[in-house]
């Protein structure tokens, strides 16, 4: 069982003389520091303290992390930022997952959640300030003990030293005294040139327990007296439960409860195995659902038909209509991309225990605020009686922003009055996801007589994520996540128009690593390649000409091209493709090198060279790892992934029919960090968008075949290559 201190307990322990505890409060105008003892009573809602550190006499520095660790390294990166200003010895620093409380809300979002590659960007100012304040207080405490001016004392590597006398005390020795010092008004922050922790490849703090198997994920939570729940779900969207055999399920050994839920039935049992046996015994019969004709074929027709409709205006620069008319050359293309599943290795799960006056939820979540709110609504308890314990997440990628599985566990615990663990099977996870939206883009562009791109007109058809999760952010009918990366693309195009057409299907959509960028980078960067060829230019040179005022993107493009040997001859059948995309504040360019077997349609990606500029780098090794990770996930989507719909539901079931990239399919991946003084960018997602277009462009370079749909299966490639061959034959 995972035990976590509540904030009240945290205070009590801290104030019982364990050392210096600092909270950071954020009001809409400024960061304000407060000492924890001033927060002993529940803080007023006007203050939302957002970061914590605790220094204890055992000389440990504990950083409370309000962001979820799903592999992106926040349990290390956020403590590094605080430790830097604190002048801690990195060896003394440890992390602790924060409970779900107002105090730990993201100061930018006002909610406790992890996503959008924002953790470092949102927490950087607050954590620096917390570290700096604690450092100043430790220095003042030491000065008071030694009765010397504070200016003569200096904090470094976890100790304060009085320079003239050489006296030295550790943070642990000073923490009790420091807790009595008033927080200074002036908080000098370090110059980046003086950073000694930030910018170094510190070993991740969560890795040892992930290597020896002791790390606790959601599935690893056990609560005494706990039941395991298996849920029978509809096989098609909108399908109604016609009948099920409650008696037989109830009679299965180990089964304790059969609970009817809205549109589903849950079997709660003493073991997971018994719960699954009980679910089989339900022998549930379902109706055909609300969209029995929905299939991949019908979806594709819907996407293409919608592209003929006029959409909501997302961008209008100049007069693209006239500019297209006047263009020396016009190019048009249509792209179609499928729904994608998250397929996190840890299936959705949650354990909840609702008692009369208390509700505990153990959950691998990206959305503590959402889980807390759901628990409050379902139980009627006030929020301070709800305790959300965040475990490690066995993959997130946006999927764990959803709170459905927590709602199921809470409801079943209420029904059974027992702790309940809900664990989805892989099939449930695959078939009841909130998918990356399927989408279609139609782009038309004009090139002038000098070969310069003058006009761009794009229609994007996609289901809307925001209309469900953030409806207030829909502006004039435009879902910003559907058009991101196109409305704000960096290419300098005088006349541009982007329209968004919302597609309604029963398939639920959600955030999937890099969201709209995951498909918009594909359409924009593949089309940019088509335009370069139409203009008779090298794809790199063509792009650079359109990025005169965008030095960071020029920088990553040039670095990736140079390191990949761009322009150097390759053997027949091999090709290189380039793509760039700015997302989440970071600039990434990639060059893919591959070969295509035109007989079988098989492609082998040999190498992906990635250049990234994310501004200040907190942990270079983590940045590199995230680029590798994003390249592989993006490649997986590009080459293999597609959710298959039929008879109104998802028929992809498991990793057999929703394949993800395997170890023998990975290319060599080179990551080059381009240093810059640009603002902080995100790291978890920006490496993904450029891979698919780089690969598709490389296929063109190798074969002359343009592929405008994903995934790049052997059949798709054969078809495209075949059409080139037949065109040549006809000529």
């Amino acid at each position, binding site marked *: 069982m995972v035990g976590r201190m509540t904030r009240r307990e945290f205070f009590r322990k801290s104030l019982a003389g364990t050392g210096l505890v600092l909270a950071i409060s954020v009001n809409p105008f400024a960061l304000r520091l407060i000492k924890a003892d001033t927060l002993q009573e529940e803080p007023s809602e006007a203050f939302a303290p957002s970061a914590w550190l605790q220094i204890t006499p055992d000389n440990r520095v504990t950083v409370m992390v309000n962001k979820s660790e799903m592999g992106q390294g926040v349990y290390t990166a956020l403590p590094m930022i605080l430790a830097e200003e604190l002048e801690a010895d990195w060896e003394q620093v440890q992390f602790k997952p924060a409970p779900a409380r107002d105090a730990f809300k993201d100061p930018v979002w006002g909610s406790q959640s992890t996503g959008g590659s924002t953790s470092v960007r949102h927490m950087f100012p607050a954590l620096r300030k917390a570290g700096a304040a604690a450092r100043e207080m430790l220095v003042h405490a030491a000065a008071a003990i030694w009765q010397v001016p504070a200016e003569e004392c200096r904090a470094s590597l976890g100790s304060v030293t009085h320079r003239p006398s050489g006296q030295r005390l550790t943070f642990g020795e000073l923490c009790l005294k420091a807790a009595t010092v008033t927080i200074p008004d002036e908080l000098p922050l370090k110059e980046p040139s003086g950073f000694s922790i930030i910018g170094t490849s510190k070993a991740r703090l969560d*890795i040892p327990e992930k290597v020896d198997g002791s790390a606790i994920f959601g599935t690893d939570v056990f609560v005494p007296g706990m039941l395991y729940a298996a849920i029978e779900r509809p096989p098609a969207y909108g399908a109604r439960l016609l009948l099920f055999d409650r008696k037989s399920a109830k009679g299965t050994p180990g089964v304790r409860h059969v609970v009817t839920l809205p549109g589903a039935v849950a079997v709660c049992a003493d073991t997971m195995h018994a719960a699954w046996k009980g679910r089989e015994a339900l022998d549930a019969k379902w109706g055909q659902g609300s969209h029995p004709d929905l299939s991949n074929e019908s979806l594709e027709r819907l996407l293409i038909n919608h592209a003929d409709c006029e959409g909501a205006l997302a961008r209008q620069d100049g007069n693209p209509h006239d500019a297209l008319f006047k263009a020396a050359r016009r190019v048009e293309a249509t792209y179609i991309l499928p729904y994608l599943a998250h397929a996190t*290795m840890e299936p959705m799960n949650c354990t909840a225990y609702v008692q009369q006056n208390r509700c505990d939820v153990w959950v691998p979540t990206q959305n503590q605020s959402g889980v807390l709110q759901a628990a409050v609504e379902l139980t009627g308890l006030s929020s301070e009686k709800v305790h959300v314990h965040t475990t490690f997440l066995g993959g997130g990628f946006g999927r764990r922003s959803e709170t459905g599985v927590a709602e199921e566990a809470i409801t079943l615990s209420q029904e059974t009055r027992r702790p309940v663990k809900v664990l989805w099977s*892989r099939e449930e996870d695959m078939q009841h996801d909130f998918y990356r939206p399927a989408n279609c883009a139609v782009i038309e562009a004009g090139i002038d007589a000098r070969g310069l791109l003058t006009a761009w007109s794009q229609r994007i058809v996609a289901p809307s994520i925001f209309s469900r999760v953030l409806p207030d952010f829909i502006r004039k009918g435009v879902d910003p996540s559907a058009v991101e990366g196109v409305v704000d693309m960096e290419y300098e195009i005088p006349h541009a128009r982007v329209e968004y057409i919302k597609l309604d299907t029963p398939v639920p959509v959600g955030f999937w690593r890099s969201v709209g960028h995951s498909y918009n980078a594909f359409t924009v960067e593949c089309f940019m390649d088509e335009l370069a060829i139409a203009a008779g230019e090298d794809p790199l040179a063509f792009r650079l000409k359109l990025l005169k005022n965008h030095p960071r993107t020029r920088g990553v493009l040039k670095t990736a091209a140079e390191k990949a040997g761009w322009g150097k001859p390759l053997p027949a059948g091999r090709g290189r493709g380039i793509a760039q995309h700015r997302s989440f504040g970071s600039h990434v360019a990639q060059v893919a090198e591959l070969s295509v077997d035109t007989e079988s349609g098989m492609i082998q990606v040999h190498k992906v060279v990635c250049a990234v500029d994310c501004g200040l780098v907190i942990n270079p090794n983590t940045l590199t790892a995230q680029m*590798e990770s994003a390249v592989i996930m993006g490649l997986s989507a590009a080459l293999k992934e597609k959710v298959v719909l039929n008879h109104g539901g998802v028929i992809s079931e498991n990793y057999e029919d929703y394949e993800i990239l395997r170890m023998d399919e*990975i290319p060599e991946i080179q990551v080059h960090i381009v240093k810059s003084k640009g603002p902080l960018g995100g790291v978890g997602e920006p490496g993904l968008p450029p891979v698919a277009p780089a690969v598709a462009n490389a296929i063109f370079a190798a074969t002359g075949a343009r592929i405008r749909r994903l995934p790049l299966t052997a059949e798709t490639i054969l078809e495209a290559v075949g059409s080139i061959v037949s065109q040549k034959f006809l000529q």
Partner: protein
Amino acid sequence: MVSLSVNGKTYQVDVEPDVPLLWVIRDYLKLTGTKFGCGVGICGTCTIHVDGKADRSCQLTAGDVQGKNVTTIEGLPKNHPLMQAWVEKQVPQCGYCQPGQIMQAASLLHENPSPTDEEIKDFMSDNLCRCGTYPRIVQAIKRASREAR
């Protein structure tokens, strides 16, 4: 009642012999390093050793391993060269698949102490990782293989 030998200890577990070994290891013995991923033996997160060879615990029953020695990630020595290499190469991201990866890799090195890149990829390709830690897994196995020599 089933008698099991896991990590050198003998357990009498009150289960039917047809219960998947994965659930016995996790839910009865509370050895949670072995993970549930797909339930059909294709993702590798539940990889354990039976008599020293990698196998999928979701595809074995408690009855299948009676009289055999089962090893889970918890049964590997903490200073195992693979674990050290995994830390050194900073392999894990989310970490969920890693115990299975390490158990698969341990079985590989047991059979083939100096595998080539191709042999590593071939042997490891049925262990999936959604975070894409594959390149580092290859490096870590090579590192451990050098270490072992």
